[in-house]
């Protein structure tokens, strides 16, 4: 389908496609096995200006919006949904700075992130605070011209490898969600250390670590937005980042579809390529239709956000919900088409299925997405 991309968007798509095919696809299986962080790919993406796609030109970026992040994420994820996270999770970490950062903060952090010299990460989740962000235990106490952070975060993508972190901590527990504040932390700050790295089902090329704060002193200039705005920072960030997760899911699905079509033409059974059997054809047709529908929803949502629309939560949640469910379905079907070969690690089909699963879980489980959508529907209804 023609999405009427502009010249720069086509350029981003083509370059990311080239990098995915030439540089990421050949090493995807290796990183999946070794769980190493893909620094050579980070360097390559940085040199190709990819980290700057959606950062304004005055901070060294290319001035794109959410759609540009989505296009890049989708193309890169076609080769590996895990490796892509070094890029996509960095955008999740820098989105709050883009949305709520003051001029000094933007000047300080964005140029290095746009150049890919540094990576960012966003830290909300804690062992007891997953879907329920109001249950955050990490505290930040004001002391003179700084805050003292204590507690821990876990399941943090790019944790340990990123340099710039946006961390949500409670400045006033009595206020519940309204007592949360967002801080910008830097790797190397006194009292800021990293805990264990998770051994995951999928997206194994991305690092998922614990962040530990022990009397960590953060200057008050590093408060993002205002004290007490932490929950709003989180929600608004997710509004713009969810199309990104959706694009990761879309990329994984599109990659699975492409390889399934190719395989079905090569695999001979009963003397014919299996693509000539209606059973396979119908599966492929359904997969393709779902992928295209996901893409259409994501692109429309991204364009809506980029145009400055206000109430985007519902569409953002829909895009994430739909694309991630499509990814799970399509990658599962791709494994089916590959048959026995789909189940073994020699072929990339099973990896896509493992990578796809997380997209239904993180940045809000798909159950939470449904709640967001439903709540919004009811609200709209009440307004009449």
């Amino acid at each position, binding site marked *: 389908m023609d999405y009427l991309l502009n010249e720069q968007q086509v350029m981003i798509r083509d*370059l990311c496609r080239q990098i995915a095919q030439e540089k990421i696809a050949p090493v995807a299986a290796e990183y999946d096995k070794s769980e190493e962080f893909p620094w050579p790919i980070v360097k390559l993406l940085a040199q190709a*200006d990819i980290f700057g796609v959606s950062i304004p030109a005055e901070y060294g970026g290319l001035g794109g919006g959410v759609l540009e992040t989505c296009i890049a994420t989708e193309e890169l994820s076609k080769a590996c949904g895990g490796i892509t996270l070094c890029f996509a999770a960095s955008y999740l970490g820098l989105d709050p700075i883009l949305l709520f950062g003051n001029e000094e903060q933007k000047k300080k952090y964005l140029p290095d992130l746009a150049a890919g010299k540094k990576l960012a990460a966003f830290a909300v989740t804690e062992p007891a605070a997953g879907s329920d962000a109001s249950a955050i235990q990490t505290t930040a106490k004001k002391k003179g011209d700084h805050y003292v952070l204590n507690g821990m975060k876990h399941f943090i993508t790019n944790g340990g490898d990123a340099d710039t972190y946006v961390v949500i901590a409670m400045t006033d527990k009595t206020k519940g969600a309204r007592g949360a504040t967002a801080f910008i932390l830097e790797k190397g700050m006194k009292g800021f250390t990293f805990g264990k790295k998770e051994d995951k089902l999928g997206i194994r090329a991305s690092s998922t670590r614990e962040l530990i704060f022990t009397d960590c002193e953060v200057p008050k200039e590093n408060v993002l937005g205002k004290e007490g705005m932490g929950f709003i920072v989180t929600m608004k960030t997710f509004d713009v980042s969810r199309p990104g997760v959706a694009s990761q899911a879309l990329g994984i699905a599109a990659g699975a579809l492409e390889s399934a079509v190719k395989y079905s033409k090569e695999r001979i059974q009963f003397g014919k390529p299996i693509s000539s059997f209606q059973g396979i054809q119908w599966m492929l047709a359904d997969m393709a239709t779902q992928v295209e529908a996901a893409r259409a929803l994501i692109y429309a949502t991204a364009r809506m956000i980029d145009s400055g629309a206000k109430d985007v939560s519902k569409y953002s949640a829909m895009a994430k919900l739909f694309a991630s469910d499509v990814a799970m379905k399509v990658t599962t079907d791709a494994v089916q088409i590959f048959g026995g070969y789909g189940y073994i690690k020699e072929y990339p089909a099973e990896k896509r299925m493992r990578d796809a699963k997380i997209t239904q879980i993180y940045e809000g489980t798909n159950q939470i997405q449904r709640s967001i959508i439903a709540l919004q529907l009811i609200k709209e209804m009440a307004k009449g």
Partner: protein
Amino acid sequence: MNIIICIKQVPDTTDVKINPETNTLVREGVQSIINPFDMYAIEEGLRLKEQFNGKATVVTMGPPQAESALREAISMGVDEAVLVSDRAFAGSDTLATSYTLASAIKKLGEFSIILCGKQASDGDTAQVGPGISTHLDIPQVTYVKKIESIKNGVAVVERMTEEGYDVVETPLPCLFTVVKEINEPRTPSLKGKMRAKSAKIQLLSAQLLDCEADRLGLKGSPTQVVKIFSPERRKGGEVYQGPIEESVEKVVCAIKSLIP
């Protein structure tokens, strides 16, 4: 430091297919690419440019459509691009080509290093690089797999040989042809691609070169192609499609009879 990189636009030979009925090349869908070996020359030129704060200029001789190869080089980070193009160059063999490129390089002024890929994937002659250095009367090192150092006007490089490599010292200016072991070519950057779109490409026609007209093109080429034909294919033997145990047995018998 001025660095000159010579590149050639070639058909993507892995795409070239022969129509078995007419025995001719199938041209449809064959893409033009930068000679893969020249990509290493571009990358090495960019690394030298970055290291010595120099300027990298890419030069190609070819038809007007070779401009797209130059724009690709710019998208990777090359500063300037020169297209050496004229009908008078048609039919050039390696002698005329190296003469023409050397004449063009003379036109571009002072330089320290000329980089070429070890050979072009369509012709595979490996003659144009050494030809250019001879016409310019500068030293050359072929099959360079590493530039170890460049200081005080002297370069130390590793030249790949059949047995290993030689460490060779050469004064600048000089010409290197490079092998794929030397580096990994970068992908273009988005900012580079944008620059490539609007970058001005210098065109050098025969008239603009200070050269002798009868050393150009077909006239300046001692070699002539007199015949083009399809290679004779070796004939196949037996292909076993049955159970592999049987097939292996037959092949083992054959191998046994071949080994004394």
